[in-house]
């Protein structure tokens, strides 16, 4: 695995007055928290920028932040058609882990996990990253054997991963039933202790605030309607707030990647599908680990508010409607009740769907294109949230240097021609 260069940057928050700290909370308590500064400003587009990032989700905001912080590109803009973090950043189950089997995936997700570990300090914003552990359980001999093979591959890449016996699982998650005579007996599992969850909105807000502090123009409610080209070179973009000249455009728009690619007349191997999740009414703390099961096909965790957060596989047909089809939540709840029967007594509070961009090999595309100055960061599919800082860090490097670094190199769009796919369909924890 390539040694990752963890340059986190150190330009943000040099002005101490704007820093969040226990002292600033105490100071603002004096005037009933009425005078907090605005976290980020609402910019209107200028006529030209050194680079423009399209997409104000976690990945896009992280890209803008690292471009400004590490590469000193502060004359840049981030364009978002809705509001910050209103897409998949606000529509996931907030799980973060790096236990992927292939070397290429291990490199990128572990890079992200290392950035997560210092993210709240880097951004001076509490992203509530909680390394509560992610436990994947297995229900059959075969699954257990495959799991053990996976765990050994993951450990060889220096990523923490431990096989657990049913007794050890019971100790970790007291509410789990490990009787051998139930429909889905728990035969074992594997745990990544450094994995966990984070507050998804805080990630978007933290990056936005830090990028804004460095001078990045964050432009919301501004939809890109066209890309301007001069032969094979990008020269600007057309938006609902006017035209912007720029030599570099980074597209980080997840489910809408194909729509932008159409504007540039390039092809992507992506299918846009809804991925749904549900939360229950809040209950007292019962689960302090994330639990995934491939055979039963669901993942579950408990939020800090006490809601049980459930997720499952993607919808079976392409859609841009952020709702999802009804058989999926039904299946999701049925699977959850199979595993934890007490859940049948809970009422479900909210259901939502995000449009995820699925690649044929379930791995992302972080790539230059045939058009000079046009970069794509997409195809994260069902597992993009966990990679947010790593994705932004690497994509910023690609845009600033105009060449992929060792982590980004395998994720080129060219891999679909050469056949060097990074097949991670098995890594999702559940089959998507």
């Amino acid at each position, binding site marked *: 695995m390539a040694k990752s260069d963890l340059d986190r940057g150190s330009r943000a928050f040099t002005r101490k007055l704007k820093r969040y700290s226990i002292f600033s909370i105490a100071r603002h308590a004096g005037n009933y928290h009425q005078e907090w500064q605005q976290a980020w400003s609402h910019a209107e587009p200028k006529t030209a920028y050194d680079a423009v990032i399209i997409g104000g989700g976690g990945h896009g905001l992280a890209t803008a932040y690292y471009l400004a912080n590490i590469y000193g590109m502060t004359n840049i803009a981030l364009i978002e058609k809705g509001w910050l973090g209103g897409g998949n950043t606000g529509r996931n189950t907030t799980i973060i882990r790096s236990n992927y089997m292939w070397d290429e995936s291990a490199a990128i997700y572990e890079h992200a996990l290392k950035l997560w570990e210092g993210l709240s300090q880097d951004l001076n914003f509490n992203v509530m990253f909680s390394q509560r552990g992610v436990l994947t359980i297995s229900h059959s001999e075969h699954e257990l054997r495959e799991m053990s093979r996976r765990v050994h591959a993951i450990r060889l890449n220096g990523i923490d991963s431990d096989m657990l016996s049913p007794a050890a699982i019971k100790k970790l998650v007291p509410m789990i039933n490990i009787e051998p005579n139930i429909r889905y007996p728990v035969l074992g599992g594997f745990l990544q202790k450094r994995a966990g969850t984070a507050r998804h909105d805080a990630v978007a807000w933290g990056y936005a605030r830090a990028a804004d502090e460095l001078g990045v123009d964050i432009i919301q409610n501004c939809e890109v309607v066209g890309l301007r080209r001069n032969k094979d070179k990008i020269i600007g973009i057309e938006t609902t707030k006017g035209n912007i000249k720029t030599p570099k455009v980074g597209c980080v728009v997840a489910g809408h990647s*194909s*729509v932008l690619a159409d504007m540039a007349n390039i092809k*992507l191997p992506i299918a846009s599908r809804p991925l749904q999740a549900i939360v229950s009414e809040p209950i007292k703390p019962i689960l302090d680990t994330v639990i995934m099961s491939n055979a039963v096909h669901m993942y579950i965790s408990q939020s800090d508010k006490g809601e049980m957060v459930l997720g499952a596989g993607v919808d079976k*047909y392409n859609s841009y*409607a952020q709702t999802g089809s009804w058989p999926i939540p039904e299946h999701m709840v049925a699977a959850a009740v199979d595993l934890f029967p007490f859940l049948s007594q809970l009422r479900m509070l909210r259901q939502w769907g995000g449009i995820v961009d699925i690649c044929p090999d379930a791995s992302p595309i972080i790539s230059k294109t045939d058009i000079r100055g046009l970069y794509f960061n997409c195809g994260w599919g069902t597992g993009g949230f966990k990679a947010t800082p790593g994705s932004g860090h690497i994509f910023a490097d690609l845009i600033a240097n105009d060449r992929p670094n060792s982590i980004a190199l395998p994720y080129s769009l060219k891999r679909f*021609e050469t056949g060097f796919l990074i097949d991670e369909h098995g890594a999702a924890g559940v089959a998507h």
Partner: protein
Amino acid sequence: MLKIKCPYCGYRNESEFSCGGEAHIARPAVSNKITDSAFCEYLFMRENPKGVFLERWCHTSGCRRWFNIARDTVSHEIYEIYLMGNTPKTVKGKKAYQANWRRTSKAEAASKTPKRTKK
């Protein structure tokens, strides 16, 4: 839940069907003669429109037969259901069929068997 009219069985719930993705992708007949990039267009590159999409469906839990649907990916409205081997007849379906970049791709051109010429 979509109500899909299987051309063989009539109206059934969406859960009886499975979706096979983009329709009308022709396999290059002379694959050894086209470039990797042209073959990649056939194998991996996909039309993924926000709007009318022509896709294949299979009535998996019923007659197990395949057919095509012209469907809007935003409203999920089904405009047309037509048999395998046919092309869409509605205005929206026809437009989506013609507008697809695949119609002019090298892979699709290579899918047609070359006409025999007199020696």
